[in-house]
């Protein structure tokens, strides 16, 4: 019997603080309607279990839910109390207080990943990949070198640069491999209908890299911005949800059997205030939503639900954090790679049954 096929972890970070409550509303909870008299009204999405429904515009994920490949974890978050986007993202990407490396970077280093096994689909490598061996940003790698002699001379100069030598060497070899790939352009499968968005385009490219197996990718990251819904949330959030679900559903279909070896984690720096503000939006809060999907994932809603009654909310009126985001990540890393011990030094909460 051959060694098990390694799994690729795709982390999608929803920048801005996605409103977990609206994405997976506890529709039958009377407190929910009371806290959000204007925003709670029109949700009629897929019923997940007795408590929660899926936001209607996340409907594209319905099939994955039915196939039990989509797990949802409500009231999920970190212990950051600044409610600052930047502080909360920093903490979540480091995965611990007072460390320089990112959690995904530590994981890749510990699992012996080599250069080019981690890719950011955006223009820079996010903090969570800090300390990953040779992680690269895909967007800036496209296009062939125009002059091989010049590239050789430039590379020679970078070899002597203590700070940039690794980065430059990885860029050169990554670019060469990607050039190979671009000659055999990936045609998405017929069932995969990617929406015409930048986010979906990133996922489509990533699906191509994963199916072609050019890079032996172990991890990839994709950012989706635009979740900071302080105002007119009912106008902004549905579009964002559609963007997310449409891209993810097409990605999963496109991967086909390769999805067996892929796990997607969707996370955000925090959830939002339980009550709506005067401008029909929501301010920065605490407990939010995490999604895990892929071939190895057991579906279902996981983790405790702290409730929305006044005495159950924390701080200025936030959903309590019932599941630490590191519990989810450690569960996924442990399940998919057998390694998770060193990644989150300060978190010893039990694994979930994802």
């Amino acid at each position, binding site marked *: 019997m051959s060694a098990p096929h390694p799994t690729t972890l795709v982390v999608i970070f929803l*920048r*801005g603080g996605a409103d977990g409550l609206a994405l997976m509303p506890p529709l039958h909870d009377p407190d929910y309607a009371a806290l959000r008299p204007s925003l709670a009204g029109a949700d009629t999405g897929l019923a997940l279990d007795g408590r929660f429904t899926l936001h209607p515009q996340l409907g594209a994920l319905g099939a994955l839910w039915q196939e039990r490949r989509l797990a949802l974890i409500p009231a999920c978050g970190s212990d950051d109390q*600044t*409610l*600052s*986007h*930047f*502080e909360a993202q920093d903490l979540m990407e480091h995965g611990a207080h007072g460390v320089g490396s990112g959690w995904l970077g530590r994981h890749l280093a510990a699992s012996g990943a080599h250069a080019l096994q981690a890719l*950011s689909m*955006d*223009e*820079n*490598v996010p*903090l969570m990949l*800090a300390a990953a061996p040779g992680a*690269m*940003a895909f*967007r*800036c*790698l496209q*296009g062939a*070198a*125009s*002059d091989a*002699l*010049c*590239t050789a*001379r*430039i590379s*020679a*100069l*970078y070899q*002597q*640069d203590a700070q*940039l030598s690794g*980065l*430059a060497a990885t*860029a*050169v070899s*990554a*670019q060469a491999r990607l050039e190979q790939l671009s000659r055999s352009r990936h045609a998405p499968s017929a069932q995969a209908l990617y929406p015409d968005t930048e986010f979906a385009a990133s996922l489509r490219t990533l699906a191509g890299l994963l199916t072609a197996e050019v890079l032996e990718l172990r991890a990839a990251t994709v950012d989706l*911005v*635009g979740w*900071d819904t*302080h*105002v007119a949330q009912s106008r902004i959030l549905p579009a964002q949800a559609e963007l997310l679900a449409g891209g993810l559903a097409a990605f999963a279909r496109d991967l086909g059997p390769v999805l067996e070896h892929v796990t997607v984690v969707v996370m955000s720096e925090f959830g939002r205030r339980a*009550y*709506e*503000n*005067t*401008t029909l*939006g929501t*301010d*920065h809060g605490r407990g939010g939503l995490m999604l895990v999907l892929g071939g190895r994932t057991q579906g279902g809603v996981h983790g405790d639900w702290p409730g929305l009654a006044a005495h159950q909310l924390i*701080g*200025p009126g936030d959903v309590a954090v019932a599941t630490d985001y590191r519990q989810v990540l450690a569960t996924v890393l442990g399940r998919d790679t057998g390694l998770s011990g060193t990644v989150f030094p300060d978190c010893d909460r039990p694994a979930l049954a994802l």
Partner: protein
Amino acid sequence: MDLTRRACLLLGGNACLALGLSGLGSLLFPEPAVVPALRLPRSTFCDWTNHCLARLSYGVTPQLRAQVQAIGIDAWLEAQLADPTPEPDVARRLRGYEMVDCEPSSCYEYRPEVIRAQLGAARCVRAYASEHQLYEIMVEFWSDHFAIDMGKADCAYLIADDERRVARAHAFGSFGELVRASLSSPAMLWYLDGRDNRAGPGVTSPPNENHARELLELHTLGVHGGYTQDDILQVARCLSGWTVRARHEFHLGSVVFEPEHHDPAAKTVLGTTIPAGLGAGDRDALCAILVAHPATATHLSTKLCQRFISEQPPAAAVSAVAATFQSTRGDIRACLRTLIATPAFRGASPGAGVGAGTDAAAAAGVALRGTLFKRPFHYLISAMRSADATLSDPAVLLDHLQILGQSPYRCATPAGYPLAQRHWQDGLWWRWRVAADLVGNRLAGIGVDAAALQQRCAGSAGLASHILGRTPAPAETQALTGLDPDQALSVLLASPSFQRC
């Protein structure tokens, strides 16, 4: 004015930069074929002049070298810290971009893409062509500090007005004025939802706290500045009632105070009470509290030092700038003077003795010169300026800035584009490509003559000295061996040293 204009037309584009304080008359009617040879850096490390030019400009054009050779670096520094004067050459270059001076109500008649293309192009043109280099750097700095994503709501129509009244009006001025201007900027009131922050009788739900939070966290005290969630709420109450006239209203795009939506009760911000009933006056009272707070001085000084000294600036430099900030109540020009005078700015490595601020003393510890990683915008503009490129259309630069992640006016977060190197270093491969395309004249609207530049520098070693601001190291000389001028210039622009300043 006429003479200068005429000189510009005669000499074309960048030559005007050379006019400056040096002999106007002698340049007016030059011998047609004689281009003066450049005096190039001769030291093996970046000397004080070249260090200042690299750190405090968007790159060193041959004309800037000639100008500084004529007037000396001290005079250049003084000129850089002076208020900017009108520049006919820049004005001529900006003529096609009417959005730059457009009033908000008129901007609403244009499509956001048109506004974005014009303002992005104007940002590039100014950085490339203006003699007031430090001023333009500070405009970029404040555009990040008070960042607005023009993709949100009505911001596209209001962002040119914001840049004029906030960053450009107060780039070297008083930080308090800067904060006040930003608080009354219609674009900012849209961007951070302040326009919707309503309180007062009949409104029971809490005000929108977005603007209040970012004002404390990003614009003034900084995230560890010692404020609480209650302070955020108090600030939101102070700012309630300010709004912007929207479409279908009179005075579209103007800021108004609506007393009926203002919370009139007393507030306590950071321990200081703002009495009830000040109404619109809450804003100035609040501003005074925030600007005078020591955390604001530290926060702003840290950011200035990060921009001009290093990602992790020495505490001594930060506290020197912060002391000036406090004693001058936020005089930005004074802070910059203090910053430039610190040993850290001079490039002294910690522990190396720097006495009397002489070049000789600084030479002992210049290890930290040339160590600040350029962000994409800085890199692209400096490549053009150093290569003595002509610029007729900057549109292609905006494409590259998008790929490298620094589109003007499109930062996705109110924190502005970050200063730290780790956010930008992943674009190396792309930078090499752009350098090759620039030198190979494959960037539409930009022209480079590498052979002419190399000739002016009397060979590839001279070309390297011009681009690097010091004589080339042996490895650099070796890397240029046997290359033609195009190849040599593109290798130099792609080299590790040119990624930094």
